[in-house]
């Protein structure tokens, strides 16, 4: 049996489509974990990135924090969090957020910092306040890059959120972990396929947001 057969067998089995272990339930659980983690990471990374990018100060600190965070292994962090806090959603969120903050923070900082200084100077010269300069002049131009940071964070979260299953939570990781345990490779491959699918959906979603939110004057088309 090859992989495609596994995939076909998994998705054509009617039993996989309902109940608490059904594909819709697990898919939505996974989306919920990923969305929550991305929201928390964005709530940390965006404001800090925007502020440091606007002032141009704190670049070294950001690079340091980002590199340190990247060096932490997600799985190790999960085990540590469970040992410290116990089971639940929180210990799962910690490694996911730690994973997602660096790309958001670093790209947002770089995106705002590298905005053409001339329009910013013009805006300041016409009496625009700093907050308005940031949100009305810099962010619209930096948006494509900011979105790309959010997108890579989202993709990493989607694939890593499978670790939730290790600590008895749901999500698509359940199929992979249970499948490995039960030596049910059909389930493992099915779960992995669903994760890949969700990653593609995420990409499509970010593409659509980019189309809608980025000005044609910035897209140059």
């Amino acid at each position, binding site marked *: 049996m090859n992989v495609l057969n596994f995939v076909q067998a998994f998705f054509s089995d009617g039993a996989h489509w309902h109940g608490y272990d059904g594909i819709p339930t697990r898919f939505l659980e996974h989306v919920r974990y990923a969305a929550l983690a991305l929201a928390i990471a964005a709530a940390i990374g965006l404001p800090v990135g925007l502020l440091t990018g606007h002032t141009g100060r704190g670049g070294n600190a950001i690079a340091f924090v980002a590199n340190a965070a990247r060096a932490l292994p997600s799985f190790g962090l999960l085990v540590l969090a469970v040992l410290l806090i116990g089971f639940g959603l929180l210990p799962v969120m910690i490694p996911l957020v730690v994973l997602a903050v660096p790309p958001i923070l670093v790209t947002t900082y770089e995106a705002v910092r590298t905005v*053409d200084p*001339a*329009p*910013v*100077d*013009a*805006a*300041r*010269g*016409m*009496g*625009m*306040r700093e907050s*308005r300069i940031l949100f009305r*002049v810099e962010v*619209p*131009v930096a948006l494509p890059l900011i979105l790309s940071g959010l997108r890579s964070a989202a993709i990493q979260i989607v694939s890593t959120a499978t670790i939730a299953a290790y600590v008895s939570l749901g999500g698509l990781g359940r199929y992979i972990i249970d499948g490995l345990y039960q030596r049910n490779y059909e389930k493992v491959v099915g779960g992995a396929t669903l994760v890949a699918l969700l990653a593609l959906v995420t990409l499509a979603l970010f593409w659509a947001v980019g189309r809608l939110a*980025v*000005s*044609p*004057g*910035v897209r*140059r088309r």
Partner: protein
Amino acid sequence: MIRIDSVTKRYPDGTVAVDRLSLEIPDRSITVLVGPSGCGKTTTLRMINRMVEPTEGTILLDGEDVQRQPVTTLRRSMGYVIQNAGLFQHRTIADNIATVPRMLGWGKQRARERAAELMERVGLDASLAKRYPYQLSGGQQQRVGVARALAADPPVLLMDEPFSAVDPVVRKGLQDELLRIQDELGKTIVFVTHDIDEAIKLGTMVAVLREGGRLAQYAPPAELLSNPADSFVEDFLGADRGIRRLSFFTSDALELTTDAVVPAGAPDAPLTTAETPYLLVTDAEGRPLGWRERGSAGDADRLLPYGRPFRPGTDSLRAALDCAVLSPTGWAVAVDADGRVTGVVSQQTIGEAIRAAHTQAETDAAPARGEDEKVAG
């Protein structure tokens, strides 16, 4: 009036960009700051709208210290135009122009109407309103920059090398446009450039700065050309300042002769005052056709080109001299507004007029300068 009162700017690294500079910038006129790169022009300009804070000295706007005014209010009362325009690339041209009105709380409709009005004023086609900056040429972008600065009708306009990034032809168009707009609106404009020709063309008053941010000379352009304060200013004005100065003398007083002007097909005019071996042939309406040698009447094919004519009164002595220099006969052709010949004039006559104009200018300037010295002392 903007009054810069012994202002010094020392940057944190110790660079003295402006050194005890004092200038009185008159209302409703263009004051140009000119000088070599790094002489503190931009710093001076940016101290007026407090983008840079002076280390010492004060700047008064209509008698009030700019330091005492809230910085946003101050800046909103001054249009600001920079090199390369600095347009907001995510906004359409109309929205770019409407930025300050919108910031001041104008309604959408009113701001849009204002933007349309300004596009016309700066010579931009209305069809560009919905475009984005990247879809415009450099010259058009610069016009948008000017329109954006004028949008809320500020009394003061600060312009930092606004036309230096476009080619000479476009630059000339922008300069002419600025002069025309200034005629209509009468703003108090402070204009920074490193191009002395631009300074002379646009300035009512010109401040020449030298390295280290010190004032070398502050004078109207004609006086700058006739009376450079020192060798620095003289060098900065360039080798042909005598020729350039002629731009400020009118060609009104040139004595034209009509003796050497004949209609096509007519016989030679008698040799009188016009000691020229050539005659200017005109058509039935009196428009110039070309020069012919005496004794070659009727031979229309052998006419020499008459070059570019000048218009007495409208054109300067410089233009008249240029016509004479370029003419194959050494004589310049004068025409009226309809292009009809009003006479011809020789290089020699123009030379005499130049000498007379210089003498006149010296006697006019002498008492004025005497008064200046009294005030200064």
